């Protein structure tokens, strides 16, 4: 399976090289690539349906436990087949649809990588490998939503989708790592028998929350649902493929996949159930005032995603059965309807439902396709959507206590979906012909062939459900709930309550369609407003982060060198003192004091000179004061018999004073800038630094130094270094490389002075 993934990436990478010369046939060529993967996997259909599980392992980073472990079971095969089959249709379709776009070759690169990653994700058994593919789908989704990147909206919503799913991805990663700490392995299959252990682990709640954040962001569950309608900025093939049929189901796939290890607890089941139910109803109501074909479809997608999530939350055998049928049905009809919306947009120049009508004569094939898909979406017999909805209703009805309540909101949500279907699938084609920006005509074959095939498939699956879905269903259920379903799929269950509900749904939907403007009007009059606007929370968070970022940067990176120095000094002294405060007898340390007369005189001079520097209001006096301090330091070296050091100090101090005086002439007139407040602050900081150093030095001198170095240097200076001045021997022999370094410093400084004086370039950004 690894080779299929590698082929996928390689094929995506060559797209730009072959696109231009083969532009007119590119859809056909591109479609062979998902087709090839589809065929490679469907050849294992019998094996998987027979109960086998195919596992392949390739080492990647074994020392971290990260490997390409691929696992093909019922669940992953179902997803792979959906992904690649719809991939064939979308690739073919995009060949025609994207023809007039600039840089369509890049489009095929992204979507190719996307499809490969998506396949990789659903067959990965290793959590981190799964995560790698997961993130790749987020990134390609970002690039695809922003494909029309000259539009600000595209860029903005691409980013929104990326941040929401990317943020969820990070949570997911943390969840995976925590989970792996329980079992010691990153393989999902290794968690199979650990359900008890995992649920009793102290990190269980955290794991569930983190994993679910990952899943809910990706599958656009409440309150993260807002990115999906906005993602409709993408070219239509992307909306059909990523944002309805495949990528948005990744989160749901994840929940299904993790169900056997994380599931069973009230936390897991109830959270999923409630969030799913809210999404289902909430998203459907949001579609009410939409007129854009794609937005309408997006809200219905959201609602369906909510239903699917809710089914996993219910978790009964019947719910799992419903989950599978519904996910297949939805992928087929929703993908198709998106492509139909794309055709309408492409052939008429508008996506506004209110401007579309009566096109059946101009787009006869599309009309048929739309009708077939719409019947499935509305749940009309004998399409697969009918079986889907029937099973969903029966599964909901089984739920204890909540059953009827859930069923009623489900009926409402589905009625709204019926309304959407009428708007998207029928209104544009029937009734009076409305004039459109472009003269309408039928789409090219590349654009209708795929959708037609999907629509027909939806019909066939409805009539022969066991041929297409039934065989894989048991194996898929095992992947989720470790049990076989043993529930046959039937198109017709007889006249019962559920059928009645289906009928009510349809009736209600049609009613809503006819009275939708009136209902909207009443809602407006009653001032019923949507108070839940998570998209505004997102904006609020983003703007808040930006304001905070600007504020903190202004405070920290304020541009004043003196503030930076203060920060560093205060940090240094306070933290180091913190460590020193633990010394119990710090202030009682009595180093060996035997102060001579000369020493005390020198100290007095230093202190006086320092005060002169601080107090004086003339620069010259201050410089003199600094000079005095320096020279007296030199005298200390003399007293302690280090004439070399003293001479060096004198030389440096003399030079410093001269240089300072020279610079003095270049400076503007002396003005006392600092306020008394800042002087006080500076005094405090300076004296605490001084106090700290004094204390430390006093402390050290109280310790008897036991160093072998002194003795070694004195002993070896003459025999080893051939020199009587130990300091010199240290400099040029014992530690010669230090001196090499320091000489280099001087050389660089010399070069630097030369170059800085001579080279004056123009400032480009004046």
């Amino acid at each position, binding site marked *: 399976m690894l080779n299929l993934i590698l082929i996928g990436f390689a094929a995506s990478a060559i797209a730009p090289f072959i696109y231009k010369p083969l532009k007119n046939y590119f859809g056909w060529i591109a479609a062979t690539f998902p087709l090839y993967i589809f065929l490679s996997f469907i050849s294992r259909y019998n094996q998987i349906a027979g109960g086998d599980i195919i596992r392949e392992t390739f080492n990647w*980073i074994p020392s971290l436990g990260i490997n390409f472990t691929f696992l093909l079971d019922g669940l992953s095969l179902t997803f792979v087949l959906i992904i690649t089959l719809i991939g064939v249709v979308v690739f073919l379709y995009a060949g025609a649809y994207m023809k007039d776009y600039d840089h369509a070759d890049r489009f095929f690169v992204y979507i190719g990588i996307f499809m490969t990653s998506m396949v990789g994700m659903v067959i990965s058994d290793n959590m981190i490998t799964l995560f790698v593919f997961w993130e790749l789908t987020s990134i390609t989704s970002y690039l695809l939503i922003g494909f029309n990147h000259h539009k600000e909206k595209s860029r903005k919503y691409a980013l929104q989708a990326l941040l929401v799913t990317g943020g969820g991805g*990070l949570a997911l990663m943390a969840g995976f790592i925590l989970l792996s700490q329980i079992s010691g392995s990153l393989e999902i299959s290794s968690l199979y028998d650990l359900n008890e252990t995992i649920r009793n682990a102290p990190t269980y709640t955290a794991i569930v929350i983190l994993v679910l954040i990952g899943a809910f962001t990706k599958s656009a569950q409440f309150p993260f649902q807002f990115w999906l309608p906005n993602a409709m900025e993408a070219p239509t093939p992307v909306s059909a493929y990523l944002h309805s049929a495949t990528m948005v189901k990744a989160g749901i796939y994840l929940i299904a996949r993790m169900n056997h290890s994380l599931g069973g607890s009230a936390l897991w089941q109830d959270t999923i159930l409630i969030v799913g139910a809210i999404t289902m109803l909430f998203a459907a109501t949001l579609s009410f005032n939409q007129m854009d074909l794609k937005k309408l479809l997006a809200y219905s997608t959201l609602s369906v995603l909510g239903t699917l999530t809710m089914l996993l939350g219910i978790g009964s055998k019947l719910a799992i059965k419903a989950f599978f049928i519904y996910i297949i049905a939805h992928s087929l009809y929703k993908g198709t309807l998106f492509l139909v919306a794309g055709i309408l947009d492409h052939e008429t120049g508008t996506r506004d439902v209110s401007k579309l009508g009566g096109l059946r004569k101009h787009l006869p094939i599309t009309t048929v396709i739309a009708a077939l898909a719409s019947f499935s979406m509305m749940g009309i017999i004998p399409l697969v959507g009918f079986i889907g909805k029937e099973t969903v209703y029966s599964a909901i009805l089984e739920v204890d206590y909540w059953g009827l309540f859930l069923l009623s909101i489900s009926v409402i949500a589905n009625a709204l979906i019926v309304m959407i279907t009428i708007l998207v699938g029928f209104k544009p084609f029937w009734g009076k012909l409305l004039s459109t920006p472009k003269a309408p005509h039928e789409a090219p074959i590349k654009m209708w062939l795929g959708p037609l095939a999907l629509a027909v498939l939806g019909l066939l699956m409805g009539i022969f459900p066991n041929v297409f879905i039934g065989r894989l269903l048991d194996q898929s259920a095992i992947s989720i709930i470790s049990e076989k379903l043993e529930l046959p799929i039937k198109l017709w269950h007889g006249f019962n309550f559920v059928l009645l509900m289906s009928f009510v749904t349809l009736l209600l939907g049609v009613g809503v369609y006819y009275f939708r403007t009136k209902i909207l009007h009443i809602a407006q009059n009653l001032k019923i407003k949507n108070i839940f606007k998570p998209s505004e929370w997102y904006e609020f968070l983003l703007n808040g982060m930006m304001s905070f970022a600007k504020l903190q940067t202004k405070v920290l990176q304020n541009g004043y060198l003196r503030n*930076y120095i203060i920060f560093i000094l205060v940090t240094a002294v306070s933290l180091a003192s913190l460590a020193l405060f633990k010394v119990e007898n710090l202030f009682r340390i009595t180093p060996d004091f035997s102060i001579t007369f000369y020493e005390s005189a020198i100290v007095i001079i230093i202190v006086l000179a320092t005060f002169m520097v601080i107090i004086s209001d003339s620069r010259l006096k201050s410089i003199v004061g600094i000079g005095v301090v320096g020279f007296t330091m030199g005298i200390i070296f003399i007293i302690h018999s280090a004439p070399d050091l003293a001479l060096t100090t004198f030389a440096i101090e003399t030079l410093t004073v001269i240089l300072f005086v020279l610079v003095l002439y270049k400076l503007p007139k002396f003005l006392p800038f600092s306020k008394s407040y800042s002087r006080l602050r500076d005094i405090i900081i300076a004296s605490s630094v001084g106090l700290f150093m004094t204390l430390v030095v006093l402390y050290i001198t109280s310790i008897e130094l036991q160093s072998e170095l002194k003795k070694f240097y004195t002993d070896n200076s003459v025999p080893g270094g051939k020199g009587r001045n130990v300091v010199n021997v240290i400099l040029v022999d014992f*530690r010669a490389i230090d001196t090499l370094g320091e000489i280099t410093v001087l050389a*660089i400084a010399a070069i630097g002075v030369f170059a800085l004086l001579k080279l004056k370039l123009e400032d480009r950004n004046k």
Partner: protein
Amino acid sequence: MTNQIIILPIILPLIFAVTMLFFWKSVKIHRYVNLIGSTISLVVSVIIMIQVLSDGIISLQVGSWQAPFGISIVADLLSAVMIVITAVIGFATALYSIGTIDPGREKFLYYPLLQFLLMGINGAFLTGDIFNLYVWFEVMLISSFVLLALGGTRGQFEGAIKYVTLNLLSSAIFLAAVGILYGIAGTLNMADLARRIPFIEQKELLTAVSVLFMIAFGVKAAIFPLFFWLPASYHTPPVAVSAIFAGLLTKVGVYALIRFFTTIFVHDIGFTHNLLLISAALTMLTGVLGAAAQSDFRKILSFHIISQIGYMILGLALFSPLAIAGAIFYIIHHIIVKTNLFFVSGVVDKLKGSYDLGKLGGVYKYYPILGLLFLIPALSLAGIPPLSGFWAKFVVIKASLEIKEYLIVGIALLVGLLTLFSMTKIWNEVFWKDDPKGSENYIDESYKQISTVKKYLMFAPIILLALITIVIGFYAEPFFNYANAAAEQLIDSSTYINSVLGLK
């Protein structure tokens, strides 16, 4: 081969630099010597790394004065990988500089300064003596200061003054700390220090000194709240200089922190490493928020250096083998990626004549390859799998979770998301958005005058570093194993001590 080879990464750049100085006036010779020299350094460094891998730690007592009396030069796994990566960046910068540095700077000894800088950096990575480390810091500081100010534009000086002042402050603290530590332990040799410190009674004083070292190196590494010099200066010099600084300079500080707080100061982890942990969290946060507030290509990148340094310090602070391995992996990844991002910013600047996001746009439409070359390091920096940055982040986060530092995990993840935000901001403004100048494909006049050869030289290092990023990402196992082994060497300092002091 003998262990003399490990001094070559220090001596060779000096020889190259001096050679160039002999041909003061010939820029051409400078370029060739610099390029050939960088190549030789690269080869030598790789040989050293291979040798360290096969024979273990190599140490050399300079002048044959037995440690701890002379100065030891030591190459363990960490040092070895650092000099290799330095050589890689040196080589890439050599190419890029020929393509981008203006004739004025070239004439005024740009290339010798580059070699001096590399000498200082390699010295810092290889020395086993704390005062000698100070000397290499000085070499680095002075050469980087001159490189920063070379050209003498107003902006450069403004940045360079802040840079040099704050770094001198750090040097002063460093020097004071060296003096104090010598006063306590009576030795300057790192291995000897590591051996003696457990027996020193004045633990509090040691901790106080270790804090001073932390501050001194913290300034160099640009951690919170000491990083001010970095955003103040990195956007001012030519981009080749920014790039090599961005890659290497802060990492010398991080390296020093790792060296000191694994080999030497582990007597009070509860205090020192907790300080590091707090600083790491705040470094990550303030850095990434700083970046979010910028709208200049290089300033965004500069602030991101800070935030990424936080991840490395986090690895050190957690102080488990996995965490330190993560920090080392992070360093390797980050040097490559960050240098490359600066390179890309330079190409964009040449092409469009600006670093200001508001004035840029439309690059992706006409230069998809450049877009790809930006996306690889940018997404890697943001930790998008399977690029190198993902593994770096993954390991550090895994290590944090193992130690149950949940708060820090939350911060690290949030910072990851904000990093992605900043990278997409650049992508959005520079590559996706249409050029605000209106003309479909605006190209700066100066770009048209650049010769084809120079253009190749500009792109070659970018492609090279992007390839390395991809290789580390897709073939992470050997890199991670190496980082692991290096971390083990650091945590169990006995092999280091024995090797340097010649104990068996």
